[in-house]
């Protein structure tokens, strides 16, 4: 594969053709926040938090799904990018349930960590929330779709790693939801002995059931400034 030269935050960088902006940035020690991107799985560009500025592009582009091209001039942390990421974060939080102090996963939550990192407080926008019943009848996975941000990582992890195709996106627009079969409760008939999707979830929407004698606390969240 031939290599390509691009300008990344003002410095010249050479990388292999076919890599995405996100991959090249990570190789060069630049931290771009992501929710929906997983190394090795197909990119979807669902969450938009990884947007970067590319010279000549009408809009900001999602770095996780945009391959580099010769001579590309990229800014990963310009003011425009940071402001946009802040608004995207607010939008994600607007329909997220937003009760961290009630959430078992709060200390391990990527959504919360990146929101803190971007210095986003309470979102300015008001919207109704999507409330769903917690699905906890499966002995392998507890699903609380109220916390889901629709990054579709669980769908891809299940399809591409486990090969089980349990999840898919159902409905449309605001009503979109990750469904199992015909929008049924996740139980051990369709999904068992796996749990591959759980560590991929950036929120507390998917978690492993906790036995009463087990330690519930995750490692403390260390907020970078």
């Amino acid at each position, binding site marked *: 594969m031939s290599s390509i030269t691009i300008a990344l935050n003002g410095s010249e960088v050479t990388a292999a053709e076919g890599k995405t902006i996100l991959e090249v940035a990570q190789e060069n020690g630049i931290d771009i926040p992501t929710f929906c991107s997983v190394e090795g799985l197909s990119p979807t560009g669902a969450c938009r938090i990884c947007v970067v500025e590319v010279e000549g592009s009408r809009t900001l582009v999602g770095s996780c799904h945009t391959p580099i091209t010769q001579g590309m001039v990229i800014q990963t942390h310009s003011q425009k990018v940071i402001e946009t990421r802040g608004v995207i974060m607010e939008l994600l939080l607007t329909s997220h349930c937003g009760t961290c102090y009630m959430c078992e996963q709060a200390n391990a939550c990527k959504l919360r960590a990146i929101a803190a990192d971007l210095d986003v407080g309470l979102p300015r926008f008001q919207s109704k929330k999507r409330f769903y019943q917690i699905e906890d009848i499966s002995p392998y996975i507890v699903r609380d779709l109220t916390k889901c941000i629709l990054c579709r990582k669980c769908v891809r992890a299940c399809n591409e790693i486990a090969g089980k*195709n*349990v*999840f*898919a*996106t*159902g*409905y*449309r627009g605001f009503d979109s939801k990750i*469904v*199992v*079969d*015909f*929008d049924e409760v996740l139980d051990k008939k369709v999904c068992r002995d796996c749990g591959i999707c759980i560590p991929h979830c950036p929120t507390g929407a998917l978690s492993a059931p906790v036995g009463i004698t087990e330690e519930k606390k995750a490692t403390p969240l260390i907020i970078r400034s």
Partner: protein
Amino acid sequence: MTQVPKGIIDKDRDPEQLLVLLKEAQDKAGYLSEEVMAELAESLSISRSEVYGVATFYSFLSTKPLGRNVIRICQSLPCYLKNYQTIVESIEKEIGIRPGQTTDDDRFTFTLTNCIGACDKAPAMLINSDVHANLTPEKISQILKDYK
């Protein structure tokens, strides 16, 4: 349990045909029952959730039984600006159901839809596949008479 009508599943098995097959299945059976969707999933070797995801994404596919005639009123911006709400109200008054419901005699299902491409003649609606445009509340009862 409803019986799956014969002849719904008889195409070459290519998962990319899913949308076409769903449309055909709906045309034949009236709506997409779980039995039909399960059979489609099995014959195309894809998951039930994927079939359900596609079936619920498209507003012209239905996973619930529909009436004999389906009224779809456009709620997109041009129709909105031309007071589509008065059309919705006059239909509600005429057939006594709200959007999303079906009449008890199965004569009408009433839903809202997004743009149907008749913006130049807004407000517009579809009944089955007929476009009715430049609607006024007075025209409604005359139009509905033709659909039994």
